[in-house]
C-alpha cells in the first residue's frame, strides 16, 4: 500500500510537470520554481513534516521526496532551455535583413588592366629565371638609337615616330639629343653596360617592362604612350634555337599549353637575324605579339661586350596589346581616360 505522502508527492510531480510544460515565459517559470521548490513550497513542508515519522519511514519517504524534487528540477531546467532558445531565436528573427539591400558602402580598389597584364608577364618571366630591370623614360639619342645600331640619319630610324624634348634651354645639349624613348630596348644596352662595369655578367637574363612613347595621335587603335616588355639573354653559346625555345616556353606559360609560337623573318636594326613572334590562335590564325632576334654584334660592341665570345637574343612584346586582346578592349582610349565605369570592370 502506497503511503499517502508518496501519493501526494507523485501528484505534486505530475501536476508540477504539467504546469512547467505549459509555462511559456521565463518569468512564469521563475515563479513556478519558487512555488514548487521554494521555501514555502508544499514539497518543502512535506520534508519538514518527516521529522515526526519513524526513522524507517523517514528514510524511505525522504528518498521519495528527493526523487520528486529532482524530477521537478529537471523539468524546470529543460523548459528553461527551450524558452531561452525561443527568446534568443525571436530576438534574432527580429533582426532579419534583406541581404540584397546593397548601399555600396564598401568600395574595392581595382588594379589597371595594363598593370595586371604587366605583372602577369613579369611573373611568367621570373618563373623562367629572368630578373626585372628598368630604365629612364627620357633617353639620350645614343641609348635609344645609336647604341642599338641606328647611327644618326640611319634610314631605319623612320620606323619610329620619335618625340624629342626641347633641349634649347639645356646647356650643352644639342637639338634632338633627348628623346622620349621609343622602345624599351635602351634598357638592354644599360643592362649590359652595367654588367660590364660591375663585372656581374654575362650571363644576363633580364626582362625590362616599361612605358614608351611614339609621335602618334590617340585614337581607337593607337596611343602615343604605351608599354613594352623587353627581354635580353646574353651568354656564351646562345643561339636562335634558344630564342625560339624561350619564346615557345613563354607562349605555353602565358597563353596556355595548347598554343604554340612561330618565328617569321623580320627586320630590326638591333637584332640579326630578326623575327616577328606569332602565337597560334584556337581558330587556326596567327596573332602577332612582338619582335625578337639575335642581338646584333654591333650592339654587343657598343655595350662593351666581345661579340666573338658572347651571343644573345632579345625580344619585345606590347603589354597594352596583350592586355586589350585579353580583355577585348575595343577603344584604346578607354585605357587612359580613367572612367570609373571602365576601371572597376577589372
Amino acid at each position, binding site marked *: 500500500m502506497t503511503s499517502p505522502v508518496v501519493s501526494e508527492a507523485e501528484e505534486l510531480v505530475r501536476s508540477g510537470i504539467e504546469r512547467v510544460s505549459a509555462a511559456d515565459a521565463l518569468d512564469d517559470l521563475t515563479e513556478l520554481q519558487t512555488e514548487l521548490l521554494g521555501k514555502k513550497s508544499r514539497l518543502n513542508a512535506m520534508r519538514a513534516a518527516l521529522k515526526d515519522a519513524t526513522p524507517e519511514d523517514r528514510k524511505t519517504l525522504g528518498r521519495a521526496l528527493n526523487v520528486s524534487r529532482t524530477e521537478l528540477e529537471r523539468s524546470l531546467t529543460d523548459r528553461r532551455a527551450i524558452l531561452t532558445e525561443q527568446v534568443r531565436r525571436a530576438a534574432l528573427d527580429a533582426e532579419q535583413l534583406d541581404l540584397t539591400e546593397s548601399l555600396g558602402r564598401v568600395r574595392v580598389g581595382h588594379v589597371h588592366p595594363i598593370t595586371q597584364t604587366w605583372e602577369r608577364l613579369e611573373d611568367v618571366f621570373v618563373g623562367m*629565371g629572368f630578373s626585372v630591370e*628598368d630604365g629612364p623614360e627620357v*633617353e639620350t639619342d645614343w641609348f635609344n638609337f645609336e647604341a642599338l645600331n641606328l647611327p644618326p640619319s640611319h634610314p631605319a630610324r623612320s620606323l619610329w615616330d620619335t618625340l624629342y624634348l626641347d633641349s634649347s634651354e639645356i646647356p650643352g645639349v644639342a637639338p634632338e639629343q633627348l628623346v622620349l624613348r621609343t622602345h624599351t630596348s635602351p634598357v638592354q644596352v644599360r643592362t649590359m653596360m652595367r654588367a660590364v*662595369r660591375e663585372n656581374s655578367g654575362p650571363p644576363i637574363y633580364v626582362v625590362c617592362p616599361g612605358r614608351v612613347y611614339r609621335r602618334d595621335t590617340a585614337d581607337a587603335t593607337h596611343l602615343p604612350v604605351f608599354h613594352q616588355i623587353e627581354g635580353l*639573354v646574353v651568354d656564351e653559346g646562345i643561339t636562335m634555337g634558344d630564342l625560339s625555345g624561350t619564346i615557345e616556353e613563354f607562349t605555353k606559360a602565358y597563353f596556355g599549353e595548347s598554343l604554340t609560337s612561330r618565328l*617569321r623573318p623580320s*627586320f630590326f636594326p638591333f637584332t640579326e637575324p630578326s623575327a*616577328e613572334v606569332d602565337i597560334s590562335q584556337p581558330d587556326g590564325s596567327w596573332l602577332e605579339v612582338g619582335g625578337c632576334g639575335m642581338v646584333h654584334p654591333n650592339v654587343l660592341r657598343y655595350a662593351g661586350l666581345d661579340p666573338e665570345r658572347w651571343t644573345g637574343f632579345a625580344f619585345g612584346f606590347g603589354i597594352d596589346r596583350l592586355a586589350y586582346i585579353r580583355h577585348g578592349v575595343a577603344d584604346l582610349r578607354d585605357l587612359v581616360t*580613367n572612367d*570609373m565605369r571602365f576601371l572597376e570592370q577589372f
Partner: protein
Amino acid sequence: MKVPQSWLRDFVPIDLDVEELANVFADLGLEVDGVQHVGEGLEGIVVAEVLDVRKHPDADRICLVDVDLGDGEALQIACGASNMTAGDMIPLATIGTTMPNGMEIAARKMRGEMSNGMLCSPSEIGLGDVTDGILILPAGTELGVSLTEALEIAPDVIWDLDILPNRPDALSIVGVARDLSARLGLPMNVGDPKVSETGSDATSMASVEILDPDLCGRFVARVLSGVTIGESPQWMAQRLAAAGMRPINNVVDVSNYVMLELGQPNHTYDLAKVAGQTLRVRRATEGEAIETLDGVTRILHSSDGVIADGNNRAIGIAGVMGGASTEISDSTEDVLVELAWWDPMSIAVSASTLNLHSEASLRFKRGCDPEIAPFAARRFGELLAETGGSSLHPGVIDEFGNLPSREPVHVRPERVNLVLGTELSADGMANLIEPIGFTTTQSGNDLSDALTVQIPSWRHDSTAEVDVIEEIGRMYGLDRIPKTVPTSPRGGSLGPRQQALRALRRSFVGAGLSEAMPLPFLAPGDLEKCGLSAEGYVVANPLAAEESVLRTSLRPGLLASVAYNAARRINGVRLFELGRVFGAADVIVDISDSAERGVVLAGEREMAAAVLCGSEAPEAVELLDGLLDVLRVGPLILVPEELPGLHPGRSARIEVAGIGVGSVGEVDPGVLDSFEINERVSWLEIDLSIVLSIPTSVVRAQPVSRYPSSDVDLAFVIDDRIPAASLLATIRGASEGLAESVDLFDVFVSRGLGEGKRSLAYRIRFQAPDRTLKDKEVARLREGIIAEVESVHGATLRA
C-alpha cells in the same frame, strides 16, 4: 607593295593555293598585309554608253544618268559620282548582279527617282584603289558586251606584301619571284627583252656628266624615237591598277611598269627640251629653284641632288621628281630615258626635307640594284615599242660615279651554326643562299674553313657575316631550327623596386582606390590650372599643342580624371597612380661624354599619388601613414606648409628621416573650381625615387604581451595651434613605455571651451610585457601624463 600573282607567274611557275602561298610568304619574311581576289564576280557587269547626265531634282549629290546597253533604250541610273559625260563608255552593274563585295543590285527609288542598276568605280570591280569616280572605259569599247570580255579581265590574286627595310630587292616583282623560286625549288626565268635597235647611236645624240660621284653611282641613258602617246593596252593598265598605280599614258605606264617589275625607277625627258642634250648630275646650290612635274616650284638645298642641262639649269631633282620643263608631250620626237643609281642616304634626306615621297624615292633610298639598269633600259624599249610604237636607238650612255664596294664576305660555317643553333654543313649553307644570288666558294671542306660569299648586286644591305647568317636562317626557315631553352644560372626575381611598387599598389587597392593611368602629356597651362609652377619640359615636335608639355606632377592627370568622372556624375572617385614625372629644376649631365652616358635626366622621378574625392585631409594622412608602414620607412613627420595648389590650411609637407618626400592634404578649392569638381578632394603624393632609396631593414617581430591591459580615457582642452601630434608625443613620452596604444577618439570644439581651443580625447591602453599592471601603477601613470601635458602644452584636463 601590291603584287599581282599573275605577274609573279611571268617569272616563276608557282602553283599553290592562296593559303599555302601565304604561309610561304610569311616564312620568307614577306609579311602578307592583305589578299585580294580580283576579276571574280563580275558577271552581270556590262559596257554601257552614257546618253545624258543631269542633276537629281531633289538631291544635290546625286546625278541621274541615262545609259544605253546597246538596245537603244535609255535606262535611268541614279549615281553618286559625276565624272562622266554623254558619249562615255562605262561599266554598268545590271539588276540582279551580285557585286564582288556581296552587294546585290536591284531596281530601287532614290529620292523618288528610279535607279535601274549601278555605275561602277574602279575599286568596286577590283581594278585599283579609285573610289571617287566611275571608271571611264576607252572610247570604242564595244557596247553591250560583258566587262570581263571588253577588258580581257582574268581572275587574279593581289598580294599586299609588307616589304622590310632590309629587303630593297623585294620592292620588285622579280625580287619576290626570286625568293619564291628559291624556297619552292622552281625555275626562275627573267627573260631577255626583245627589241630591235634602229637609228643613230644614242651616244652621239646626248651626253651625261656625273659631277658629283658620291651622289650618283651609275647613270644609264638610252634614246627612243617615234613614240605615239596614248592609252596603254588593257593588260598593262590592269596590272598597274592591280599593283596600286593609276594608269596615265603609255610612256608613264611603261616607266612605272619597269620600276615595279625590275625595281629600277626611271625617268623620261623630251630630249629636244634638254639644253645642249646634256645631263649634268650635281648637288643643288642652296636656294636653287625648280618647277617639278606636279607644277610646284620648289626651293632646293645643297643636300639635294639635281640633274642639270647643258646650261647648268636644274631640270630634275635626283631620285625624287622630274622637272616640268622637259616633260614628254604629244610633240616629243626623241625620248631620253634615265635609269640611275642614286646614293640612298642622299635620296632619303632629299625626300624627307622636300617632303616628296614617291615609289621611286622609296626604292632609291632603300638601295637599288646598280647592275639592272641596262637590262631595264631594254625592257623599257621593248614595252614602249609594243604600247607606243617607239623604236630604240642603239648605243647606251653609261656613266659611273662611286658605287659601294662589294667585297666578298667571309662567313665561318661554325659561326653560322653557333648563331642559328643549326647543324648545317658548309655545302648546305651554300645551297640555301645560291638560289637567291649569293655565290660561294670554300677554301676547304671543314666547318672551320670560311666560305667566301659574293653578295648579289641587289642586296646592298648585306655587307657582313651576320647579314649572310640571317639569309641562311631565312632560307633554311626559322621555324625549322630546333627549339632549345637556355637555363639562367640564377633564379629569377623581382627587384626591390618592383616589389615595393607591388606592395604599394596592393595597399592602395586595399584602401579602396583604383589605379589610374592618364597620358603623361599636358597642354600648356595645365600646370598653372593646378596651381603648380609652369616649368615643365616641352616636347620639341608634338603632334598637338595639348600634348606638348611633360608632366612635372601626377596631379593634373589625376584631377583631369576626377573631372572626367564628375562630368559623368560619378562622384566619390578614389584613384591612385604610380608613374614618372619630369622635373624642370634638375638639368641633364653632359651626354657627349660616353663615360657619363649611363646618367640621364636627374629630373625623372618615380611618384605615387592619390586623390580621394569627398574626403578631407586627415583621411589622406591616415592612408599615407599606412603606405609608409608598408614601405617600412618612418616615422612620418608632417610639416604644415602652404604648398602650391593645395589648401593653405589643410596641407603639409611630408618628411621621412629628415628628407622632404612629398605632400599631403587637400587640393585648393580654387583649383577644384577650375576643374569643375564640386566635392572636396584630399591628396597625397610620395616621391618614390627618394623613399625607395631609404635603407630599410627586415621587420623584427615584437612579442605581444600576454598580460591584461588597462584603458584610461583622457580629454584635454588645448590651444588650436598646438598639433595633435605634439600632444601625442607628450603622452607617449610620459607613459614610461607602458602605453601599448594611444588613440585619438574624439575631437570636440565648443565655445564653452574658450576661444581658440579644442578638446582632444585619447584612449590610452596600458600594458606591461612582463606583468599585470596594478591599479595603483595605472593611476600613477595617468597622473603623470596629466601633469606633463598641462605643464608642456598649457592644456587642462577636461572634466
